[in-house]
Each structure stands twice: as C-alpha cells, then as structure tokens.
C-alpha cells in the first residue's frame, strides 16, 4: 500500500511541476490579436527564423504542423482552428482554389517578391493560373535513388523497376499519385491523365510489379537506402539528397521518360483573421537571408533566384537538387483531377493495395 502511495505522490509531483508550463500555453491562447497561426508540413522550416520574425515585427507566431495534405485539409475543413497561413502542395492548392477556400494574396506591396525566379512562377501557373493565390516556398522532383554497388548498370529509365533481377529490392512510393507516375510516364502518358484505359493499363503494370516490390514506403525509404536494405527506391529529390549525403554509394536520376515536379507554396485561406500579418510573413520568407537559412536547413530546391545566387558552385551544380533544363522540360506538375476522377483513382489504388 505504502508503495503505491509513494508512487502516486511522485506522479502528483510531476503533475504540479509540469502544470505551470502547460498553463501558460492556454493563457497564451487567449490573447488573439497580434498573432499569426501558421500551418506547415512537419519540420519544414528553420525554427530560429520564427523567432527572428517575432522579434522584427512584434507579431507572435503560433506554429502548427501536419503530415499529409489530406490531413491538413481534414483539419482545416473542421473549422476548429482559423489558420492564417498554410503551406501545402500544388494539387491541394488547386483543389482549394476551385473550392473557393483561398484569398488572393497581395504581392504588389511585397518587397522581396521579385526575388522569385519567373521560371518557377510560370510552373505554378498550372495550378494557380494568375499567380494570385500561392507563393512558392520549395520545389523538387520525383526520381529513382539507387545503390551503385547493388545496381551494376546505369539507371535512366523507369523500366528498371520491372527488372526481375531486383526482385524484393525495390521500394515504391506509398502515395497514390506518386506511384502512378511510374507506369504512366513509361507508357508515355501524362501524369494528369483521366483516361480510364490509360489508368487501367497503368494499374495492370503496377499489379505485375507488386511481386517484385519489397515495400511501399514514403519517408522510411531514405533510411532503407542509406542502410543498403534496398537496391533502389522511387523517392523525392530532397530525400535523395539527404540519403546521398549519408551514403556515397547512392545516386539519383530523373528517368528520361520524365517525371513530376512538385511545388510547396504559401497560401491564405478565406477564414484567416490576420491576412496582413500573413502577407508580412510570406514576404519575410522570401528575404535572401531568411531564404538561405531555410535552404541550409531543408535542402530542397528554392524557387528564390536571389537565394540561389548566394549558393556556392557545388550546390548550384548539384543535379539532384537543381536538375538541368532538359530534364525539367519533361517534368509535369500535378493537376487536381476533380472529385469524380479522384474517386476513381482512389479505387484503383485500393485495388492495387489489396492485390
């Protein structure tokens, strides 16, 4: 009995000690005026940048994170929290624009907006036709990361993902649209196709491939590549860079058939209560010193020309981060497929997983 009492006392002590800390959290939630609620992917910012912003502007940032765009959308739609600024990916932005969920961003008064490279703003037009609703933050490609010790040949085509020699050594993307890039591009189709015959053919190719696949992973694929568990993986360029940093046997290629180029952008939802502060924050993110700090931390490609020019030559020439123009010309940006076709896509994906 005494033992339990002591244990309970110890627990109670924990409670009172930690009580003060969390209490402050809630009182902070009460003051509402001079704050900015930012919603971003997990670990997708250099944290000290937030402190800098708070110091310079006196605006308090409440920073909130999510895992997938769909998680974000579910939470946004519930209306539980009025986010002022959200960073998310291309197709989700288009979906939200079409649903009338976004406000136009006033870029004319921004000091640093001109730092952005017009090439990438043009890419963004495929989901935001007049560059009104989204300001790009980072971009990247999808390709094959492979272990040169385990793969004896040069990798330049998606076709190698059907090679039986690498049975049980392949990692595919565990994300619906990313997985379909591979067969669609190999067939010569667009990654935004909604043609049922093309999609069914692509699905059949993925069925055939499933017995060769070691695993469908998203983030863990980087570690599996570093440790040499797998010979190759379909992977985001940023993950590939990180993996290649840790294991020098690894290499990355965007296959010759083309691939996907993706953009993560800032946007302001219509329920935002602090639009001006949100615009200040976007402008702040585009400043050269801030952009550099973020680039050094995140290591994805920056659409910011001024930041790019500050980089050393070795980084500039890193084809994993910044692919050449010829490669880029074969890459497509995702488009939102519309509700009906998205549902069809989901069904195909479910069938593949169940196969």
């Amino acid at each position: 009995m005494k033992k339990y009492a002591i244990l309970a006392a110890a627990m109670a002590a924990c409670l009172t000690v930690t009580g003060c800390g969390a209490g402050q959290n809630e009182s902070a939630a009460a003051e509402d005026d001079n704050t900015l609620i930012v919603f971003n992917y997990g670990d997708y910012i250099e944290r000290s940048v937030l402190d800098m912003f708070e110091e310079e502007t006196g605006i308090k940032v409440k920073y909130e994170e999510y895992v997938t765009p769909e998680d974000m959308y579910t939470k946004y739609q519930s209306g539980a929290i009025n986010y002022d600024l959200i960073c998310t990916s291309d197709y989700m932005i288009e979906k939200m624009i079409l649903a009338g969920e976004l406000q136009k961003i006033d870029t004319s008064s921004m000091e640093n907006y001109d730092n952005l490279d017009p090439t990438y703003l043009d890419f963004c037009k495929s989901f935001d036709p007049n560059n009104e609703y989204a300001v790009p933050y980072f971009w990247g490609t999808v390709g094959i990361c492979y272990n040169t010790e385990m793969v004896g040949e040069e990798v330049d085509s998606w076709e190698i993902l059907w090679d039986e020699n690498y049975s049980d050594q392949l990692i595919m993307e565990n994300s619906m649209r990313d997985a379909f890039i591979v067969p669609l591009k190999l067939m010569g189709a667009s990654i935004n196709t909604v043609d049922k015959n093309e999609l069914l053919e692509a699905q059949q190719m993925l069925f055939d491939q499933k017995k060769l696949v070691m695993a469908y992973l998203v983030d863990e694929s980087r570690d599996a590549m570093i440790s040499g568990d797998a010979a190759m993986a379909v992977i985001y360029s940023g993950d590939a860079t990180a993996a290649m940093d840790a294991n020098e046997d690894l290499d990355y290629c965007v296959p010759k058939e083309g691939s996907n180029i993706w953009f993560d952008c800032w946007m302001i939802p219509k329920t935002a209560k602090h639009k001006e502060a949100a615009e200040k924050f976007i402008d702040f993110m585009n400043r050269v010193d801030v952009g550099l700090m973020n680039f050094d931390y995140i290591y994805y490609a920056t659409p910011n020309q001024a930041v790019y020019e500050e980089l050393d030559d070795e980084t500039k020439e890193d084809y994993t981060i910044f692919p050449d123009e010829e490669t880029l010309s074969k890459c497509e940006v995702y488009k939102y497929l519309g509700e009906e076709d998205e549902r069809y896509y989901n069904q195909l994906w479910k069938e593949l997983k169940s196969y």
Partner: protein
Amino acid sequence: MVKTKSFLQKFYVGLIFTILYAPIAVLIVCSFNASKARTIWGGFTLDWYVQLFQNEAVIDAVKTSLMLTTSAALIATLLGTFACIGMTVMSKRSQAVIGTVTNIPMLNADIVTGIAIMLLFVRFMKLGYTSMLIGHVTLGIPYVILNVNPRLRSASKTTYEAALDLGAGPVYAFIKVVLPELMPGIMAGFLMAFTISLDDFIITYFTKGAGINTISTMLYQEVRRGINPEMYAMSTLLFLAILLILFVVNRIGAKQDEMKVY
C-alpha cells in the same frame, strides 16, 4: 530435477524480458550515435542531450505530455474505479449495458474516436488542452474498468461483511478491507491508462489546439524529414527517470517490509 525446472523458468522469464527490452536498448544506443542515420555508427557523442535541453519545443512537448497523461490517467482511474464499485450492486442487465458502452472506445478504430470527439468539440467548445484531456480520459477508462472489475469480482465479500459485523462503518470497512484487495487492479488500470495515453497519437492530433504538442504529435511530424536524434535522447532520459522512480519506490517499500518484521 527441481533445479533444472527453476533454471528453465528463470531462463524463460529472462528471454522474454530480453526481447521486450531489446528495441529500447537499440534506441538508447542511437541516442549516443554521432551519425544522424539510424543504421550507421558515427562514434560516441552527447550532443543530442545538449541540444535537447536547448530545444524549447521539445521541452514544452514533454511537459505537456507528462501533465496531460498523468491527469488523464488519474481522472480515468477515479471515474473507472468508482464506476466498478457502484456497478457491483446493480442488476446484471445494467452491468452488461454499462460494460458494453465502456468498450466502445476500445472497439472503434482510434481515428474514428478521434474524429468523432473532434466533431463534438468543434460544435460546443474550442479545441485546446481541455479537449485533449477529455479525449485521453475517455481512452483510458475502459482499461481501468477491465483491470478493476475482475479483482472486484474475485474479492471476497465475506471479509467486508465480517468487518461490518464487527462494527466498522461501510466507508471504513471499504478502505481497510476491500481497497487493499483492489489496489493491484487499480494500479494496473492506472498504469495502462497512463501508458495508452502517453502513446496515443491519433486522438491527440484531432483534439489538440493550435501550437500545443505532445511527444507523439511532435514525433509524427518529424517522420517526414527523419526523426531527430534528440528524440532518442529524450526517450532515454524519460526511461531512466521512470526506472529511478521505480527503484526508489521499491527500496522504500523493502525497508518498510523489513521494519514490519521487528
């Protein structure tokens, strides 16, 4: 013969404990690994521990987690234990109904419970610490009841009635006679509620307000770009702290047992 048997028994217990603790050992080793990659040994370092204490976000998350989990488990234990005691004098039918309702949060996939609770809160109150607490208490209660109920059923009614016959009041008799018998069940229930709540991600994610993080929500967000080794360091420290509490409690307990002899 007896010796081999007792050796086999000890071996078996030892084996299970080894398996149970092997992954923990791996995490502890990782917290001293200079390389950020999980599978490569880059030399011994204490850097992650230093960085851990400089990282306010992590410290805040640990505080929130401990506070949330402890209060949720305490509330769940109180509610659950009282409920069990009250249920003993109810009809079998009501017992069955309550028991069934109790299990609903366990039966449902976590995401369903999480979203359902979120929908409720969005309508009636703001998301914040309170909504998280309510979600966690709800999650923990079934485990308390599952642990206390069998104890209560096998507790002997005769001793309680004997105490009453000897002139003890019902409350006094309960505290002196029934409670000690229930205590292991209550403790197990508390610990399970505590554990479940500490581990939960989905319900926390859907019921939390802006800017609040627990250890779990923080970890899940880090998955996208790789788990920060600071988290291994934090887990190691948390683990050691609990181990220490356990050790101290045990020592004090042992001393008291010794004193009883004299």
